[in-house]
C-alpha cells in the first residue's frame, strides 16, 4: 500500500477543501453566469455594457494575477474601509480576508464570465416560437424565463457547462499559492519535508484525474438524460 508518511489525513482534509472550494465556486459562477447572460441579452444598453466589460476584463487577465489581486488587495481594501468606518462612525469593524474566501470569489468571478458566454449561447438556441407561445399563453416574463427558457436552455448549456467545470476543478489548485491548505499545499509541504516529490505529487495528480474522469462520466449521463426527447440526426 501507499505509505504517505503520516500525511494521509492532512491530504484527505486537503482534498475535501479542494472539493468544497470547487463546488462553492461553481455555484457562484453559475449564478453570475445566469445574471451575466440575462444582462447581455437584455434591451438595456447599460446592462449589456457592464456584462461585456466584465467578460472582456476577466478573459484578458490570468487567473493567478486575479487571485493575488483579490487576496492581497482585498485585505488592504477591508483595512481601508474599517479605518474609514472607525473614523467616521467609531464603529469597530474588521474582517479577515482568508484564502478560502478569496479563492471562491476569484474562481467564481472568473468562471462566471465563461458561464455568461455559455448561457448566452444556450439562451439564443431556444427557439423564439417557444417564447412567443409562452407570451401568448399570458406567461409573465419571469414565468417565461423559469418555465420555458431555463429548462430548454440547460440542454444546450450542458456541454459548455461541463467543460467549464473541468477547467474550474483544475484551477482550484492555484489557491495553494495564496496559502490555502488544499491538497496541493499539503503535498508540497510533505514533498519538501521528506524530499520525495514524486511520492506525494503523483497521488494528488491521480485524485485530480479521478475527479475529472468521474465528472466526465456524470456529465455524459446528464447529457443523455437532458437529450432524451431529442431525435438525434445521424
Amino acid at each position: 500500500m501507499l505509505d504517505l508518511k503520516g500525511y494521509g489525513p492532512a491530504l484527505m482534509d486537503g482534498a475535501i477543501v479542494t472539493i468544497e472550494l470547487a463546488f462553492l465556486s461553481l455555484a457562484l459562477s453559475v449564478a453570475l453566469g445566469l445574471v451575466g447572460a440575462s444582462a447581455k441579452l437584455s434591451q438595456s444598453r447599460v446592462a449589456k455594457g457592464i456584462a461585456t466589460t466584465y467578460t472582456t476584463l476577466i478573459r484578458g487577465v490570468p487567473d493567478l494575477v486575479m487571485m493575488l489581486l483579490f487576496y492581497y488587495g482585498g485585505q488592504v481594501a477591508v483595512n481601508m474601509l474599517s479605518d474609514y468606518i472607525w473614523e467616521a462612525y467609531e464603529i469597530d469593524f474588521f474582517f479577515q480576508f482568508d484564502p478560502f474566501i478569496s479563492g471562491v470569489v476569484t474562481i467564481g468571478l472568473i468562471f462566471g464570465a465563461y458561464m455568461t458566454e455559455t448561457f448566452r449561447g444556450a439562451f439564443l438556441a431556444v427557439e423564439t416560437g417557444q417564447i412567443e407561445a409562452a407570451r401568448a399563453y399570458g406567461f409573465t416574463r419571469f414565468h417565461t424565463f423559469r418555465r420555458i427558457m431555463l429548462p430548454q436552455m440547460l440542454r444546450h448549456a450542458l456541454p459548455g457547462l461541463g467543460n467549464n467545470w473541468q477547467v474550474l476543478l483544475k484551477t482550484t489548485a492555484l489557491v495553494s499559492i495564496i496559502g490555502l491548505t488544499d491538497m496541493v499545499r499539503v503535498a508540497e509541504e510533505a514533498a519538501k519535508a521528506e524530499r520525495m516529490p514524486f511520492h506525494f505529487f503523483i497521488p494528488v495528480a491521480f485524485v485530480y484525474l479521478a475527479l475529472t474522469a468521474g465528472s466526465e462520466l456524470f456529465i455524459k449521463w446528464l447529457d443523455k438524460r437532458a437529450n432524451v426527447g431529442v431525435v438525434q440526426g445521424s
Partner: protein
Amino acid sequence: MPDFIAEWLNQNEIFTAMTIMEYWDGMVTTVHLVFLSLVIGLLVAVPLAILRTVRNPFVSGPVWLYTYLFRGTPLLIQLYIIYYGLAQIEGIQETFWWEIFREPFYPALLAFTLNTAAYTTEIIRGAIVSTPHGEIEAAKAYGMNWFMRMRRIVLPSAARRGVQAYSNEVIFMLHASAIASVVTIVDLTGAARNIYSRFYAPFDAFIFVALCYMALTFILVFAFRKLENHLLKHQRPVNG
C-alpha cells in the same frame, strides 16, 4: 494632459524607471517562455495527433494516455512534479542535464511544453478526424500516397478547422504561464509579486500587471483574427 501624467509620475514612488524595467524584464521572460513552449508544443503535437488517429490501438493508445493524463491534472501539479522531481532523479546532478535543469526556466519550459502539446494534440486530432471524406477520396483518386495526402490535403484543411480552438489554447497558455512565478522565475507575475512585497501596494502592482497581460492577450486575439481571415479567405462571401 501630459502635465498631469508627468506630475503623477513625479509624485509616485512605485512606478519609477527601475520598477518599469523590472516589469519589462518580466514581460520578456513571459513572452520567451510562452513562445518557446507553444512552438515546441505545436511541433510535437502534429506528429502525435497523426499517431492518435491511427487505427492500431498500440499506436494511438499511448498518445491517448499521454493527452488524458496531462489534460486531466492541473498544470501546477505537473510543474511541481517536474521542478522538484528532476532534482531528485538519482545521478542527474553528475550529468550535463543538471546544468540545464538547475535553473527553474527549463523545468518550467518542459512542463508548459508537455501540457500545451497534450491540448494541441487533441485540437489537431479533432480537426483531422472531421476532414470531409470526399476530400480524401478525391486525393486518392488523384493517386496521391499517404504522405502527400497528409501534407497537401489533410493537414492544411485541418489547420483551417483547428485555428480557432488553437487561438484559445494560446491565450490559455499565456495566462497559465503566470504560475511560473511560483518556482522563483521572475516573469510578469513574479515582477508584480516582488514589487508588491517591496511597497505593500497590491493595487498598483497587480492591476498594472493585469493590464500588461490584457495588452498581450489583445495582441494575440488580433493576430489570430488576421490569421483566421487569411486561412478562411476562400469562404468569404463574394460581396461581403
